[in-house]
């Protein structure tokens, strides 16, 4: 099993391990060293180092002119990042929780994502919008959502969702260098935070030096022959856990980590489903009108004959994320729900 795409990296292979958060920060720091136009702004990105450790140490290293704490004023500072990008700077701007997009979405989808198009390609907006997603720690309905499907639905922004440290670094490098706005969604549960139960894969080997993971390329993180599990972010790890657990029972899961939603690597999905004939989509975003339906539609419109069994999905069943632990875990895409879905698919 490999979590990195070695062909995408020009760095020397390494066994050095970092948390996802540290890998993300390492990429930002390397890009800030490389290009004076790169700077970071957002709430608590300075002395605090990012509520989810996404900017730890950057203030000490680069100073307050390049790592800028903002007021709680997302429309103003995300809009300011858009204007700065229009003038050729390359801001990395953090929206603390993706759940907060309601107070600033106009700057994101009507400005950041449309200026390049409306200008007929004459104005570029090279900006990275980082934001924390995901639940599982009883933070309630306004601090636990994923919502990546909403961004991916709206044209004009690339959308990436790393699941592990190496990809966190490689996708950040690619995002900063991209001339388009890139929304970079990191799950709190894969960051390796000391104050939250760690997924065991939130610490992993990360190439030193320059490491680029191309945007728009999914990764088959576990090859298998019976069922294709297409997923992303924290759910990748749940899917891998389930795959390991089911292997001795003779159920061989292939796990595809999407990594990018826009552009979506449809070919990798189709190639995998073409081999397994069974598709399960696992998504921590809401069930309806979202990512899981889109993946299945891409398969169905290309070749419904690829599927030997009806496609299945495990997602949040159109309910706000509940607070109480038993309720929250009843709606999240847990390993238990994934296991049952896989077994249903293979008719076990």
């Amino acid at each position, binding site marked *: 099993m490999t979590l990195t795409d070695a062909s995408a990296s020009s760095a020397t292979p390494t066994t050095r391990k970092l948390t996802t958060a540290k890998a993300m920060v390492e990429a930002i720091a390397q890009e800030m060293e490389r290009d004076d136009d790169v*700077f970071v702004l957002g709430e608590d990105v300075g002395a605090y180092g990012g509520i989810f450790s996404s900017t730890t140490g950057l203030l000490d290293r680069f100073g307050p*002119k390049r790592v800028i704490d*903002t*007021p709680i*004023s997302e*429309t*103003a*500072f*995300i*809009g*300011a*990042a*858009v*204007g*700065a*990008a*229009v*003038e*050729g*700077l390359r*801001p990395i701007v953090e929206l603390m929780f993706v759940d907060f997009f309601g*107070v600033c979405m*106009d*700057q994101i989808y*009507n*400005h950041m994502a*449309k*200026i*390049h*198009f*409306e*200008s*007929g*390609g*004459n*104005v*570029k907006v090279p900006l990275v919008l980082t934001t924390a997603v995901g639940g599982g720690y009883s933070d309630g309905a306004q601090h636990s959502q994923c919502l990546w499907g909403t961004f991916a639905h709206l*044209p*004009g922004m*690339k959308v990436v969702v790393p699941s592990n440290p190496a990809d966190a670094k490689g996708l950040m490098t690619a995002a900063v260098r*991209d*001339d*388009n706005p890139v929304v970079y969604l990191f799950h709190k549960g894969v960051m390796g935070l000391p104050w939250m139960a760690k997924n065991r894969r939130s610490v992993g080997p990360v190439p030193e030096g320059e490491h680029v993971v191309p945007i728009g390329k999914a990764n088959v993180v576990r090859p298998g022959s019976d069922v294709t599990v297409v997923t992303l972010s924290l759910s990748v790890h749940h899917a891998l856990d389930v795959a390991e657990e089911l292997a001795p029972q003779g159920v061989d899961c292939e796990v595809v980590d999407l990594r990018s939603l826009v552009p979506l690597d449809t070919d990798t999905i189709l190639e995998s489903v073409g081999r397994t004939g069974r598709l399960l989509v696992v998504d921590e975003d809401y069930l309806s009108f979202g990512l899981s339906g889109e993946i299945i539609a891409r398969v169905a419109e290309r070749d419904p004959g690829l599927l030997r069994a009806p496609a299945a999905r495990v997602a949040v069943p159109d309910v706000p994320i509940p607070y109480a632990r038993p309720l929250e875990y009843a709606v999240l895409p847990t390993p238990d729900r994934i296991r049952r879905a896989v077994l249903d698919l293979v008719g076990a």
Partner: protein
Amino acid sequence: MEPDVRLGLYRMMVLIRTYEETILREYHADKKPVFDIGAGLIPGEMHLSAGQEPVAAGVCAHLTADDAVTATHRPHHFAIAHGVDLDRMTAEIFGRVDGLGRGRGGHMHLFDPATHFSCSGIIAEGYPPAVGQALAFQRRGTDRVAVAVTGEGAANQGAFHEALNLAALWKLPVVFVVEDNDWGISVPRSASTCVTSNAERAAGYGIPGERVEDNSVEAVHEVAAAAVARARAGEGPSLIEVHTLRLWGHFEGDAQGYRSDLEGVPGRDPLPTYEKRLRADGVLDDTAANSIAAQAHDRVQAAVEFAKRSPEPDPATALDHVFAQA
């Protein structure tokens, strides 16, 4: 004020008015006998700026093409006064391939990197990007300024206040301009705004605020001079509100049945007022006035002809420009 500066302001106001009258004519020319907003050579909503020329002419007289202007859904006067290429702007309004946005933007979405001009069709939401342009200018150690324009209706939006706070906090070189034309579509200012002057709101952010009461281009010019100088000197943003005039409807096709002040509107037209004043002061005579009018006419006609000559975009290119290619 020097006569040539006054003539320059007048010339700009005439050019803008000529442009708006021409677009008005072209817009309606093929929408008869029954008005259909989606029909004709210029389809879609059309928000014309006649009556608001003094704001754009007075402010932009202090700018160069290195300064930024972020305008609104009613952007033509500021685009013209800031020196956006009239041919390509007109081609964009006509939805043609030689337009500023190759026909992707339209009249509310004009972007011109050459003059750092942009607009937003969303009320007040052009302010935050202007703050970001100013941030870029400040970071690069330049004395360039960003002018951010809204109407008085926008001053009740959150984005307006967030932008003022951030620009004041970071001492950014922004000149915030509020065009108070009394009406937010059909809602009078008295029904939308709790203060008599939005300039008062500047005090809430610790920055200078000035209101120009009489839609006088020279008064705007004077107030803007101070605001632009302050921004260039690194002393931070200012807010200017100009009590201006929406000479026509909110958009074309607006019958303005709600408008209680309609009778007095023609008498408040700033263009004949200014012309009269320049003539009385001996700055303008028939020869100069005719020459200015003829030049404006010729320039605008050339732009319209350029637009009409430009091809319509090929439908096969409809998906282009969503993303920049590496």
